[in-house]
């Protein structure tokens, strides 16, 4: 079933928004995410560019600074709320896992 736009976030969306909890330049996000995830998640330049445009359109982020073509962004209240909702959803998933399989670390 197709996902309702930004109702649930993909892993890439989640980490882009997480980076923008602090003011951050678009291009720096590309480096931050692999650092943050130990190289597990990587966002392509085209995907990042388009997602930033879309987040701006729906006011999940706002532009803070513009130095030449280097633009910086930060999360808005709406963005923070949607990120929080995604975090709660992930937590609920983790809780369900623990309830059924206990605290054991999956091998």
């Amino acid at each position, binding site marked *: 079933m197709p996902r309702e736009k930004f109702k649930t976030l993909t892993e890439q969306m989640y980490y882009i928004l997480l980076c923008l909890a602090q003011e951050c330049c678009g291009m720096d996000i*590309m480096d931050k995410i692999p650092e943050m995830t130990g190289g597990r998640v990587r966002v*392509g*330049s085209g*995907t990042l560019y388009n997602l930033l445009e879309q987040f701006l359109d729906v006011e999940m982020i706002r532009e803070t600074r513009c130095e030449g*073509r*280097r633009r910086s962004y930060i999360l808005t209240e709406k963005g923070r709320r949607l990120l929080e909702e995604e975090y709660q959803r992930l937590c609920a998933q983790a809780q369900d896992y623990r309830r059924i399989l206990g605290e054991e670390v999956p091998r």
Partner: protein
Amino acid sequence: MKNKKWEIPMFSFYDHTGMERHLEKRARQGWLLEKMSGLGWTYRRIPPQPLTYTVSYFNQESLYEPEPSEQRQSFQDFCEHAGWKLAAASPWVQVFYNERPDHVPIETDPQMELVSVHRAVKKTLPAYILIILAGLWLGGSWLWQFLQDPIDLLVSPNWAVTSFCFGLLFVYMVTDLICYYRWRRKAIRAAEHGEFLPTRGLYKLHYVLLILVALSLVYWALMVTTPGLRGFFLAYLLLIAVLSVLTAWVRRTLQRRRVSAGVNRAVTLAVSIGLSLALFSGLFAGMFAAIQNGWVRLDGDIHSSTTYEWNGRTMVAYSDPLPLTVEDLTGITAEGYSCHLETEASLLLKREEGEQRARYDVEEDLPRLEYIRYTTRFSGVYDLCLNELLRDYEDWNIPGTPSEQWMQYRPSDAAVWGAQNAWQLYMGSEPMYCYVLTWPDTIVQLEPDWLLNENQMAIAGQKLRKKSDGVGRTESICLAGAAILFQVIPQASQIFPHVMHTQVIGRLQLCRILFDPFYRNWPGRPDHKCLSVLFPLLQNLNRAVI
């Protein structure tokens, strides 16, 4: 060693995977894409190396946006940061390459990629629909005419080529769209699972279609019987090219001068309309002037003619050489005739329309003679023509017409004409002075305005028939080509044993073409006696070779 390479790629607009693979192959051969335009792709030489290409659909701006646009540059900055260098760009597509083996793809979200591809396709959709409708209309009417009244179509290369090209364009556009939507349906499903689905275009089919279009244009240029039209068409193509280049130049110049998109669009449109009006009205005016002054002939036949005055009007009397004249039939020579012969021909069929009638200023009641001779150059069209001719009058019968007014061809005695078959037109039970006569390769529709006696019938048959063995001229060339092929590649006849017939007939035709000039009657037929001697000789030679 040349350092530049140019090619016209035949990729579907959405087929980025095809383009990427092709460009990667070129990089391994030592060519790096440098420029993309409507005239093709240009490469420059580099040391052969493995490069990864990505074709990115950037469609957030209009075609007229000032260049370089900030959005586009900012997108390129993002890509450059990840090691993707811009190779070339067109208004809707940007092509990047990456030298790093551990690169991160430009698109890492299949759903986002689907959205940008679809947005790009939607922008080209109106052009697709317009061409599909034009192709459907012209290609469909061509097919309809081919099934209903094929003679005009077969005899004229103009209409045949135009409709054929539009038919091919229709096939191109429809298959392209079907292929895209099939890919999209599957790609949506794959994207739901986070997977990318490579695109697959129909580039082989598109190459075939392009070659067919090119061949049909060459065919048209060779066959068109109106030399003026050939020059007119070439001038027309040239003007279209000039117009496209100038319009694109205006748009690009304004983009570089950073004029706003709105102004650019308005200026480009105004220039385009103004130039079209100026260039094409100039072309048409020039053409009319050339025809009026007799510098260009639209009519392919050269007529010898004189003019005369009749009732205050200037009339033309022709004196073309006719294969059959009233004098041949009646033996009476009369002044005051106009003899007109018009020829039209394609690779498949030749039509000669002869007419001998009294000039308007002649008061004497002179017999009139009209006929149309069809020479088929490919035996496949023979029955199509004959059927249309025999149906010709019947088609004019209105249902419910009394039987005594019903027009119909009925078989008549062919021997008196020296023909293979003969038909005469009847209205009810009354015979009319209209005949259809057939010989191998030749069909004649003869309409004198008097009742011919048997002697006259024999003369008409003798004058109008063409010696033939039933294999048309084009067919003969094709068969000879096949014979040469089988001679060069003997294995071919083992692979296709059923083409033995083609081989035999083909060699016969080869003989004919080779020896025909000696008989000084090309494109006529050689003496069959000569062939009956030559053919066994050739067969023995063939055995010796194999």
